[in-house]
């Protein structure tokens, strides 16, 4: 039913006026057009160029052939893709294992220092990514404090290396993106009804049992969100593999970078980019199905 406000504006049922909708649309338009023009158009361009070719001079040409897509089956690419997936997944798991106790300690035992502690985690994350990575590579280097400490307690011998190995790359990814895991986990733990833990204890569940059967399931969605937030940038990262892994540990991001800067084969680079996007898309679909199920269960 249309109604009139004292000012006389005609409103629809939900109380919004026609003039308002027009103004809000006008406000929305510039940003949306900008993003469509620069972002959506450019992503379509990458998808299109993946079907293109290079002419004899190495210039990219638009076309319609699937050579670049077929090239993705090349074992050399498959190894790099599988390695990237593996590194990103392991980084996710390590982030979860480290982030959970951190988020748990702060959310449940942080007391009045909660906000301060979370700020202390977030602030370094805003510092320059390269500077942080560089510092991390110095810390993990052969003469660095981490290896010295490990050697002192007998966990490493003189030959153990962290840099120039897969461990180094994963350490880099974890250091780079762990904050994305901590924040959603912290939010989930903060929201959690603590009387659930209490109930678990009342039913004679030990601390471990209560944790695995009560706390962990209750914060599952936070962990899933964190996993996606870590996995996305970890898959696309090329700095960690370059600084901490060296040429034997390259990830798909390094291949893409190489095709665009050194190799100058843009169609192939575009195809690699689309391959990465496809893998991430499948992962996202899995995540969305999972959360849908959880929400449906919660609604029941």
């Amino acid at each position, binding site marked *: 039913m249309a109604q009139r406000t004292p*000012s006389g504006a005609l409103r629809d049922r939900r109380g919004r006026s026609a003039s308002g909708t027009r103004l809000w649309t*006008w406000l929305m338009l510039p*940003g949306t057009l900008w993003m469509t023009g620069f972002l959506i158009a450019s992503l379509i361009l990458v998808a299109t160029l993946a079907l293109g070719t290079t002419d004899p001079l190495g210039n990219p040409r638009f076309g319609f052939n699937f050579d670049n897509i077929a090239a993705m089956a090349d074992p050399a690419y498959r190894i790099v893709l599988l390695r990237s997936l593996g590194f990103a997944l392991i980084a996710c798991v390590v982030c979860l294992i480290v982030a959970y*106790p951190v988020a748990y300690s702060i959310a449940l035992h942080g007391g009045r220092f909660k906000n301060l502690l979370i700020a202390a985690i977030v*602030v370094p994350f805003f510092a320059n990514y390269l500077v942080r990575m560089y510092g991390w590579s110095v810390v993990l280097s052969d003469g660095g404090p981490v290896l010295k400490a490990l050697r002192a307690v007998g966990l490493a011998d003189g030959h153990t290396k962290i840099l120039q190995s897969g461990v180094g790359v994963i350490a880099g990814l974890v250091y780079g993106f762990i904050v994305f895991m901590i924040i959603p986990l912290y939010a989930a733990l903060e929201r959690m009804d603590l009387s659930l833990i209490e109930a678990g204890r009342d039913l004679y569940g030990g601390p471990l049992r209560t944790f695995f059967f009560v706390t962990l399931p209750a914060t599952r969605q936070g962990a899933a969100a964190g996993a996606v937030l870590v996995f996305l940038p970890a898959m696309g990262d090329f700095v960690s593999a370059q600084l901490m892994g060296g040429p034997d540990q390259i990830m798909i991001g390094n291949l893409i970078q190489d095709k665009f800067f050194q190799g100058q084969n843009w169609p192939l680079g575009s195809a690699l980019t689309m391959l990465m996007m496809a893998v991430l898309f499948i992962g996202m679909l899995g995540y969305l199905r999972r959360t849908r199920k959880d929400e449906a269960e919660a609604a029941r």
Partner: protein
Amino acid sequence: MTLRPPRRLHRRGTDRRPRLALTVTTLFFLLLYLPIGVVVLFSFNGQKSLTVFKGFSLRWYSAFFHDNVLIESLGMSLRVSLVAMAGSVVLGVALALGLVRCRTRLGSLAGLIMLVPLITPEIVTGVAAMLLFKGMDITLSSGTVMLAEITFSISYVTVILRSRIAALNPEVEEAAMDLGATRWQALRLVTLPALLPSILASAVLIFALVFDDFVLAYFTTGVDPQPLSVRIYSAIRFGVQPTINAVGTLMLAGSIGLIGLALAIPRLFGRRGGLDLLSGK
């Protein structure tokens, strides 16, 4: 054995200190700050070494201030950040207002488009932006970096401001209109001033993010001058230069200062919790 008073329900579940979790947390904080501490410490090293600290000196800072290439890069990064900040705040604030208030089909489409940069790895947006500029025959320069950074930052402004706008009481705006203001006047004289702290805070944040951004800048920058983070990248790829420690320390100090400012702005306006950055809510 003394009789203990019964505890309140919600406390008992959490009163035991989980020693393992606290140990991991302590170790985590140590490792989180160790790399940063190393960069800061060795920026004051009297020697070129990265493992042995020999005497306090400011020589790497003076080396930085005498390095024309790095200073030019600093200037470019500052220019890019300023322009990207202004552009993305104007577009992002308008977009956020529109998205919250306009529930049409176009609105939900715009909401989806806005999410794209947040769920796309930066290397993909970087590659895509570079291809777009090359395809349109635009020479890569500071201008292309600015355009790319604006595109990327709009989403952040919108995400930050959306919840703020949704939390505003629309009746205040309506009251202004009942008193004779047009919708535009109500927006300009009532809503925007109420949002000002959040807008300023998000602007500061965008400045810091763009200044520190590497991937997007790397793909969209031309040859000379290059943004500071791209310079740092090429420097640390080809051997270690202690000057980078000094630059890194200055950038760290700048970022931390800006984040502090962004968090403090809502409080300066006498409001608590203006930016829900930290709580993740």
